């Protein structure tokens, strides 16, 4: 039999050396495997990022590629950070962020708590609840404008039916006071299941023995809820809030399809405003500085998120 001597020799050598003899070294394989990923990310993420930072110091306009590009230093940043209109869009984003997180945490946690009672059919209903989250926000958001139509829209009809108001008397996406709530409602509808799923994971990670011990100490259900359930779920909730916070800070597709930023600029969130500067007014340099500000903010939040993620992983 050919190769028996070699096999014997191979099985006698310690695995570390044997591996090196048989093929590429571990380090070479590791680099070979990681390199394509890193290369692609460098080409499509890091290189453009550096380009954006460079552009942010210029007055470049993408619709006039042949015009002279002037170096303007920090002037773009100064203008953005003292512009009350951009501050306004930040406040619109804050309103959106705060209320979506508020409702999603409230409803999401309540649902998770109910589902954790493990009634019959809970798996089926969980799957049903989760559906909206997985769908295309742009397509669904577009269809919600139909539900929001005065008179013919299902939403208006149901609200009018329940409250007795006139279904033609209000327009969720046309009225200035209502539009910010129209986007909050759709986002809450879409993303509550996300918070719910993570809370459910948190609730299921609490061992029964803790409750049993509390029961022995004659702690009331109410006390158990605040001293056991809430603190144990909190890291998970933190994770959900941070993730939704980052996602909604950069919210674009759903809202642009729902209201397009209108009426006026009441629902013009940061990303929509940025899109307008970059791809409608074509102030590329200015928009790049705007983009860098968003980058840094999201990057900062993302690092806190990863810290929270690792904390949950250790559980």
């Amino acid at each position, binding site marked *: 039999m050919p190769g028996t001597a070699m096999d014997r020799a191979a099985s006698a050598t310690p695995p570390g050396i044997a591996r090196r003899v048989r093929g590429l070294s571990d380090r070479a394989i590791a680099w070979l495997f990681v390199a394509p990923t890193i290369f692609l990310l460098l080409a499509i993420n890091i290189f453009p990022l550096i380009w954006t930072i460079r552009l942010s110091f210029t007055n470049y306009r993408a619709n006039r590629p042949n015009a002279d590009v002037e170096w303007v230093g920090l002037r773009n*940043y100064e203008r953005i*950070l*003292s512009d*009350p209109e951009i*501050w306004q869009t*930040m*406040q619109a*984003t*804050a309103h959106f*962020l705060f209320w979506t997180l508020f409702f999603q945490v409230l409803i999401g946690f309540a649902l998770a708590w109910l589902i954790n009672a493990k009634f019959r059919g809970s798996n089926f209903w969980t799957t049903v609840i989760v559906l909206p989250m997985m769908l295309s926000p742009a397509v669904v958001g577009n269809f919600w404008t139909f539900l929001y139509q005065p008179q013919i829209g299902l939403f208006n009809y149901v609200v009018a039916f329940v409250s007795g108001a006139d279904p033609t008397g209000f327009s969720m996406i046309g009225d200035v006071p209502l539009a910010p709530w129209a986007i909050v409602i759709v986002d809450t509808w879409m993303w509550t299941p996300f918070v719910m799923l993570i809370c459910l994971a948190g609730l299921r990670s609490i061992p029964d023995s803790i409750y049993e011990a509390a029961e022995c100490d004659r702690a009331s259900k109410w006390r158990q809820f605040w001293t056991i359930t809430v603190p144990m779920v909190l890291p998970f909730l933190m994770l959900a809030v941070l993730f939704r916070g980052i996602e909604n800070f950069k919210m674009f597709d759903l809202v642009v399809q729902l209201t397009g930023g209108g009426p006026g600029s009441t629902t013009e969130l940061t990303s929509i405003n940025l899109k307008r500067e970059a791809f409608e007014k074509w102030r590329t340099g200015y928009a790049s500085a705007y983009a860098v*500000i968003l980058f*840094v*903010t999201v*990057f*900062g*939040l993302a*690092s*806190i998120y990863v*810290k929270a993620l690792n904390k949950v992983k250790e559980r």
Partner: protein
Amino acid sequence: MRRFFHGLIRLRRGPWEMVASVLIAVGVIMLMQPFALWAYSWSFIVTLTGTVMFLITSHFPE
């Protein structure tokens, strides 16, 4: 509290990451609050400081 300051002086990761996280959070709140324009104007610098600090201090020993 004493351990926190002790950690800061000895350049430990935990407390420094905490400081950086707080800076980032403060920066984000300054960016989006509706009360004072000056806070909005300075928000970016605060967030940037926090983020850079986080990047550096996450390499400190535990």
